[in-house]
Structures are given as C-alpha cells and as structure tokens.
C-alpha cells in the first residue's frame, strides 16, 4: 500500500508536468482559455444542478431510509428496497432519457433524473446503517427511559451516521459524474462543452468541459470525505482513532 503510494507520488507530478509542458507548447492552454467565460457560466449551472438534485436526494433519502427502518415497516421494507434496487439497475442515461419523455426538456427533467439516480445509495445506506445499530444499544436506551424519538436522535442516528455518510458520498459521486449528461436533455452544465467538443472534434473545447468536470468531482469527493472525517463523533468514526 505504502509502496504503491510512493510510486504514485513520484509518477503523478512527473506526468502532470509532461502534460502541462505539452499543452503549453502546443498552444492548447491558450485555446482552452478562449472558453473561459463559457467555463465559468456552465460550471455555475453544473454546480446548481449537482447541489439542487443532490440536496433534494439527501433531504428525501434520509427520511425515507429512517421510515423504512422503523419496526412498523419491518414487513414492507425489503419489498420497497427491492424496488429501489431495480431502480439502480437502470443506467443513469436511461433514467435521464425517461425523465425527458415525461417532463420535456430543460432544468426540470435534468434535476429529476439526477435526483432519482442519487436517491438510492442514500436510502439504502440510511436504512442499512440504522438496522445495523446493535439491538442491545436500543434495549439499553429503552430501559433507561428514552422515548422512541430520543432513541432515534441520540442513539440510532449517531451510530448509523458513518454508514449514512458513505451513502451520501457515493450518491454525490454518481451525481457529479452523471450531470454532464444533463446537457443532452437541455439541462445545461459542462456537458455542453464536452459533447459539442466531441461532435466538432475540437479537443480544446472538449477539455474545457472535461477538466472542470473532473476537478469538480475530485473536489466534491474531497469535501464529503473531509466531512465524514470531521463531522462524525470520534467514538463512532473508524477514520479517527
């Protein structure tokens, strides 16, 4: 692990340097620079799509996961989860296409398609995380005189938080990666540069879309990873010793 890490550490900067040198001499950087205004505008659009659909998925997915994990739902929860599972087997491109047939083109179908695609990991991890809270913790909490709500907030959710956070992280990774497809149904975003670049065989235009998309994906994953490290209490965080 450590050895491969060192190798990466040596190869990566060298590779980047070579890439930069080539891009500089071939004039690619200058060409990409001509798209600067588009990049700024489309990145904003892109981030709004990610933020809105991802945020909505969190706001809906977590309560749904909690609701499915309640003892009263025990009999139906697995059936509902199966429906969600079938939902993920549909490729996200198909989800977006389906959503266009219903909602037309523009922001709304793109938002809805991305929302649906990122919902499942959040629901599944919330549900699984809450079910994995040991029964004896719930028994101790009940025996001490906590109400159902207190047990959920003070015992179940904190102890499921790490697994739930992993679900959010996966969902946002899927979301950021899928958002370029939104362009195909008129949702805008950096996909506009990528797909147009492909169609015109214009490498600099393609890269003007692809590089910010990649950077955004890395940034979002870094931020959620940091959140997972810092926001979850030390006692239940395997990342902190």
């Amino acid at each position, binding site marked *: 692990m450590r050895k491969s890490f060192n190798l990466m550490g040596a190869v990566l900067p060298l590779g980047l340097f070579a890439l930069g040198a080539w891009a500089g001499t071939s004039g690619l950087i200058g060409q990409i620079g001509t798209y600067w205004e588009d990049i700024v505008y489309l990145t904003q659009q892109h981030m709004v799509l990610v933020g809105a659909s991802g945020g909505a998925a969190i706001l809906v997915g977590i309560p749904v996961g909690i609701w499915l994990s309640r003892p009263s739902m025990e009999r139906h929860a697995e059936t509902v989860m199966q429906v969600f599972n079938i939902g993920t087997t549909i490729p996200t491109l198909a989800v977006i296409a389906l959503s266009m047939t219903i909602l037309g083109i523009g922001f709304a179908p793109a938002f809805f398609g991305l929302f649906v695609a990122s919902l499942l990991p959040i629901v599944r991890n919330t549900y699984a995380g809450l079910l994995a809270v*040991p029964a*004896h*913790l719930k*028994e*101790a*909490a*009940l*025996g*001490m*005189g*906590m*109400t159902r709500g*207190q047990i959920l907030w*003070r*015992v179940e959710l*904190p*102890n499921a*938080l790490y697994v739930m956070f992993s679900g959010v992280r996966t969902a946002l990774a899927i979301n950021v990666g899928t958002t370029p497809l939104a362009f195909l149904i008129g949702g805008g975003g950096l996909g506009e540069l990528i797909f147009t670049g492909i169609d015109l065989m214009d490498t600099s235009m393609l890269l003007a879309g692809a590089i910010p998309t990649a950077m955004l994906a890395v940034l979002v994953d870094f931020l959620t990873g940091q959140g997972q490290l810092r926001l979850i*209490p*030390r*006692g*239940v965080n395997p990342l902190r010793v």
Partner: protein
Amino acid sequence: MIRLENLTKTFDTPNGTVVAADKVNMEVPSGEICILLGPSGCGKTTALKMINRLIPPSSGKIFINGEDTSGLNDIELRRKIGYVIQQIGLFPNMTIEENICVVPRLLGWDLKRARARAAELLALVGLEPRLFLKRYPKELSGGQQQRVGVIRALAADPPVMLMDEPFGAIDPINREIIQDEFLKMQATLKKTIMFVSHDIDEAVKMGDKIAIFRAGKIEQYDAPDRILAHPVNAFVADFVGADRTLKRLRLITAEEVADPDAPVIARHGRAADAAAMLRNSDHRFLVVIDADHRPVGYVTAEEAEGSSGLVGDLAHPLPATVPVRADLRAVVSEMFAHDTLWLTLVDDGGRFAGVVTQPAVTRCLGETYARANAA
C-alpha cells in the same frame, strides 16, 4: 422494596400459547440483592424485564416501595429504575461523561449537577475522572466498560436496580474483582436489586436471596445457605449441584467458626508454663506469639511436657495463617494444601485472632442438617 404479585406472561405462538412466567409471587426487601437463577428459557429474564416493562406483563401486579407501578407510564417508570445489561450497552457515540449523564439529563438535571455526579461515580469505582470523563467507550477495557455500565445505572440514584447478567461477559478474574467492588458499593448504597444470573457460584456470592426458576415458576425462594443446605426438590438440588455443601463454605467466614480463646504463649515464656497451661485445657497445642501479638509458631503438649528452656526454642513454624475475613473455602483449601487439621487466624494488623480447626468447620456446616433432622 420490589413486590411481584401473580405476575404472568404468556406469548401466543403458532404452536399454541407459551407461558413464560406463571403467577410469579415474590418480595425483595429494601436494600437486598435478589438473584433470579435458572437454566435458559426458565423465565427469569422475562420476569426481570416485566418490572421495567421492556416486556409488558400479561397479568399481575408490580409494586416498587409499596407503589403499584401500573399507575406510571413506561418512560417515567424506566427512568426511576437502574438497568444494567450483559452487553453493557454504553453508547459508542457518547463520551463516558455523556453516557453517565443520560438519565440525569432525561430527568431534567442541569448540566453542572449531572457532570459533578458523573465525576463522583467514576471516582467511586476507581476510575480517575480526569482521565476517563472525556474518553469514548471503545477506549476502555472490558472491565472498565462494565464498571461504567453499572455506575451509569446508578447515576440518578434510583432506589431499585435491575441487572441482567451484568458480569456475564467478563473474564473470570475481572469478574471476581468487579463482583467484590460491587458488593462493597452495595454495602453503602443499599439499593434494592433484582439480578439475573445462570451461575450458581455468582448467585451464592452476590445474593441475599435466590429465586430458582423452572418453566416460568419459582421453585424455591430462599437465602443462599437455605437453598444449598435444604433444596426443596430434586430439580433445585440438581441445579445447585452435588457439591452444594462445599459451596456453602463460601458463605461463612473463618471468624464465625474460629476459637478465639485458643491458648497462646509469648515467645520468651518457659516450656514448663506451656505444659502446665495445656494440662489444664483440652487443647493439644499452643500458638506462640511475639511482642506485637503476631503468631510466630506453635508447640505441642508432648514437646512442652518435661522440657526445660524457652518455648521460642521449641516452637515449630506455622504452616500458614489466614485472615479472619477469609471464607471457609479459602481456609479449607489452605488446610488441604498444608495437610493440617488447624490453622491460625490473623486480623488486619497481622495479630493473632484465633484458631480454626477442621472439626469446627464440619460441625458448623453440619449443624443445619442436624437441626432439620431433629425437627
């Protein structure tokens, strides 16, 4: 005080109705520990969990300090009862301090008071508050976690505690230590405790009373010595084991069977005096003591007789001494180890406190059987 009246629990299963607890009647006096003992599936845990309604009773009544608990709602009732489980159940997301403060905070104590209480309780079980308050459960050893589990139940000072195999998950050495600590605490706290166990040795050690369960019914409810000496039926006799009389050894301290008037003589006393003392008593030996009253050896009647000189020169070293508070099991064990029929007792300061003999031990154990036969 906890009183159970006709407490019954039935479960409806596809194979018909199962009776988990069948008209259980018992009373635990205030300040006593009552052990619910029996094989698995005998209804002891069901009986315990009906008291804080983790299992709702089918019928019957529960009184705590004379008050019928059916008038309280589940939440109020549980906050008034300390609850300790085998898996400990410390909340891993909370620090030790937060864990201990849970019930006080639920009861509306202000934060300062709850925190002071947490520190006080940690100190009580020998865990330095400064080191442990801010730690998380996973940073503690199993034994330390179990101690915190017990003091968390004590946090709001409930009069009644329910303990479901609280020391079941700890290794034997630490279990003994924690049991001793708990008994010491209980001696000052005087809680009324219901304690589920499946271990007869633990029951004999911890219990003021033991209730033996079978198939949802109490077979016998008695003091440990009565259960061991006079099991009411073959089931109880079988459950407490063929060596039940040996188990009684743990219930009696050396002091109780010792002969405190066993004769002693100073080291610099004359052998002739020793012989004279023994001639006028039915003892066969004298314990030799030093100036601080510490036993240092013994002389027998035969050797003292006709000998001149000092007893200090005649004395044999003592094979072993036992503290007065040792139980008879430890005493007998020492006797067997040294192939001797008697041992010298010493008090906390190491001073002579009497002699305990094997016939005295067997007489003490046998008395209760003789009385039962005479009656």
